[in-house]
């Protein structure tokens, strides 16, 4: 096995699987272009070949020398704190990855919740909204349960949850809750500071972007969140 670790094998498998998947998908657009003999697939397939070569090169290099940085490379990655943080936190074992990816799936389940329910029930617009309104709290409870054992996973997932809900519930309703969530996850426990932070950030954002620059932020499309957003926008502008 040389100096290989499980992580090295997973990395190589990831890149090769990605290249294989995208190669197979490229048959979907494998059509000729009259004036260009390489067609639409020539460039991406050449890149995928290079991905496979680089992944094998990386695998071979790790087999021979392990995790050492190569000579001749310069820059930040080994010094920007990310690798160091990963090492110090010990978040590199298999169970942590499984737990983190279980959390990360939740926002996507919310986004596709109406499709999942739609496989069993006929849903109109109202039905879709009802499914979303039920899915949001249910998945948030699941998130809170899973997050108890995985603090970093919870931090990674919360912004995705926020983004997933923006379309339906709107920026104006979700942003204050998001600020409170992030501040809590970062370790702040004093309620007055959390409330002040939420009020200040929302005040600055709404004044600058909505009142001054007339940027239309997402208002959501489910009542009563949509109505609340419109009321806030009307008040500000």
């Amino acid at each position, binding site marked *: 096995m040389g100096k290989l670790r499980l*992580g090295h094998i997973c990395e190589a498998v990831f890149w090769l699987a990605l290249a294989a998947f995208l190669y197979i*998908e*490229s048959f979907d*657009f494998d059509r000729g*272009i009259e004036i*260009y003999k390489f*067609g*639409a697939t020539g460039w*991406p397939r050449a*890149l995928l070949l*290079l*991905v496979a070569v680089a992944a094998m*090169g*990386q695998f071979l290099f790790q087999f*021979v020398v392990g995790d*050492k*940085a*190569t*000579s*001749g*490379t*310069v*820059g*930040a*990655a*080994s*010094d*920007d*704190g990310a*690798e160091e*943080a*990963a090492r*110090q*936190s*010990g*978040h590199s074992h298999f169970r942590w990855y499984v737990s983190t990816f279980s959390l*990360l799936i939740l926002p996507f389940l919310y986004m596709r919740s109406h499709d999942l329910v739609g496989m069993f029930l006929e849903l109109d617009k109202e039905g879709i909204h009802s499914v979303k309104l039920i899915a949001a709290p249910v998945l948030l409870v699941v998130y809170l349960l899973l997050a108890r054992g995985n*603090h*970093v996973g919870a*931090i*990674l997932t919360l*912004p*995705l949850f926020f*983004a*997933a809900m*923006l379309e339906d519930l709107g920026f104006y309703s979700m*942003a204050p809750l998001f600020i409170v969530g*992030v*501040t809590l*996850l*970062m*370790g702040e426990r004093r309620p007055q500071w959390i409330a002040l*932070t939420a009020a200040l*950030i929302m005040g*600055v954002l709404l004044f600058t*972007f909505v009142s001054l*620059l007339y*940027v239309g*932020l*997402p208002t959501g499309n489910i009542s009563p969140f949509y109505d609340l957003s419109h009321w806030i926008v009307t008040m500000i502008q």
Partner: protein
Amino acid sequence: MDPFSNFITGTVTLFSDPLGILIFFGGVIGGMLFGAIPGVSMLTLAAILLPFTAHLSAEHGIMLFSVIYCTGVYGGAITAILFNIPGAPENAPTAFDGYPMTRNGQAGKAVGAAVMCSAIGGTVSAVIMMAATAPIANWAISAFGPPEIFALVFFGLAVAATVGARTLWKGWLSILLGLMIAVVGMDPVGGIERYDFDMPYLLAGIHFIPTILGFFAVSEIFVQAERKATGVYEAPKLSVNFPSVAELIAHKFAVVRSIVIGFFCGILPGIGATLAAFMGYNEAVRWSKDRKAFGTGKLEGVISSETANNAATGAAMIPLLALGLPGGALTAMMVGVFQMHDMEPGPLVFLNSPDLVWVVFAAMFFANLSILLVGFLETKTIINLLRIPFQFLAPLILLLATVGAYAVRGLVIDVVVMFIAGVAGFFLRRSGYSVAGIVLGLILGKIGEQTFAQAMQMLHFEWTGFFDRPIAALLIVAALLTVAGSIYSAFFRKN
């Protein structure tokens, strides 16, 4: 009239018009502020202002965007240095040494160097732009066809693969990932949709602003959050000690070299300031006797990157005004401003609207000079952002990034893409991949494929045709030697 007389006329026109003065200073301060606020960038401001320029004259609209361009490129260096969040891709190499300097308690020195070098690079570039737009544009246009531009992109990517990642292979995988992301959407020759997975959103491709915000701003918050969650977070050390004049003079060769590189890259359509900054940084490493110190907080890294990217701003106006070819995202928006006023940028602008051209040139010159004056004042205040505890700064940055990603096209899916890129960036960075490499691949991917296709058609699909053209041949050989040299170093040289 000679360029100097034109410049004087442009200056008088600019500063004798109260609305022009207001727009000029609004652009200077707006570009600096949006560039320096973590999460949003000059592109966010430009995207927000684009519809409003319809109410301005063409002269004021183009002048506003050119001023935002100059000061925004500088402003992006502040967040790159203080938070490891480049305000724009052209500031990415600035973070390589700027952020380690902040962690070492030298934030003031790094920001001071960025102020000085951005002003020097931008002002010299503006002077060259005014003096030599016509001959330079003629030379670049005749000497650089698609084969040369593709060769330059290839060379730039070969160089970038050795910067920012833990190993050469990870550098290439990062760049290739960026190039693959750029493949999503319509193919540049036949308009055939690729990797859209039946999602209409993907037909237009993945926009680079949410991707950049995700890979840099969001992933940085995640990395710091992990450090905080595991109790190893250290707040950056605050300092406002600017570099001494002697320190800057000691780097005079780096400044001159970066101006030449920046100007040369900026003049080429589609290449712009991003590659200029990467190449400026990389050449600094190549010419240095102390290569190992780069990436750990070396002042020369900040100086080279910031001089080169601002030197590219003046040069980028040459293909835009002479040919109507934008060199980057912001100059592409300027094309939009021209079109809103029923004008097309190109050689006719010089004939039909000389006033516009010279007001814009004068505004860019003074905008770069004002970096020196306003930049120091702004730095003294912006640097205090580091005093805000991370638990309060993190939600602010994440929400600013959300607004920045959403404001570009008004699509919530861009926010989702940004946070997905943030999570991906978090995992890739902790495994030693380079997010800057991914972003460079993403930005150069489209132009790389387009110029490759055009070159192959021009050369009748004969690969050897590249070697019949001296500049293309030189660049391709240089790129191949860079790749071969780095592979040799990776396997056979002791670290």
